[in-house]
């Protein structure tokens, strides 16, 4: 039992600073998504405009 409480203490000591540190971490991927959303709105970019290659892709089902 004494060992268990020691373990809990050590876990808490390791985990808590990790949470604090990671929380300050900049969420780069999420920021990129947010930026894209705002830029699309400002420049009025439609989803089809920046991926024109998708529409030109051949359709295997229709060719047979």
């Amino acid at each position: 039992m004494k060992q268990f409480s020691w373990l809990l203490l050590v876990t808490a000591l390791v985990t808590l600073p990790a949470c604090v540190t990671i929380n300050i971490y900049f969420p780069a991927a999420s920021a990129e998504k947010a930026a894209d959303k705002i830029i699309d709105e400002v420049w009025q970019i439609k989803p089809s405009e920046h991926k024109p290659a998708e529409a030109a892709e051949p359709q295997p089902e229709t060719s047979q």
Partner: protein
Amino acid sequence: MKKLLLTLFALLLALTAPLVMAAADIDINTPAIATLTNSMQARYGKLSPYYASGAVGLTRDGLVALRDANAVSLKDRQAANALVTAENNDRNALYKEIANANGHPEWEAEIRSTFAQRWVQKAQGGWWYQDAGGGWAKK
């Protein structure tokens, strides 16, 4: 054996906790951000000819600049300058507002550099942008 299992469990907990915390998202749903976005969208109609002619370029710090004043006729130059200034005011306010809205004012610089890259990425062909060294390049 039990001690080993407990140690492993504790280690697992210590390792996964930061992963859970790292899943924080950037929130852009505030009235101030919507206002700035709308203001920039309305200005885009007036700015886009200048982007296309190369008179105005995208800077590496997420702003715009009058890079070639000669591409603007003398009578339009003052209006172009005013557009650039107004756009930069909105952009600076936007980066600051996103950082503040997410409770991390210190993220402003990273948000700015994220935007700087994405503006260039989404720019149309023929527009001008500043590369990492500060020189102007045509997309």
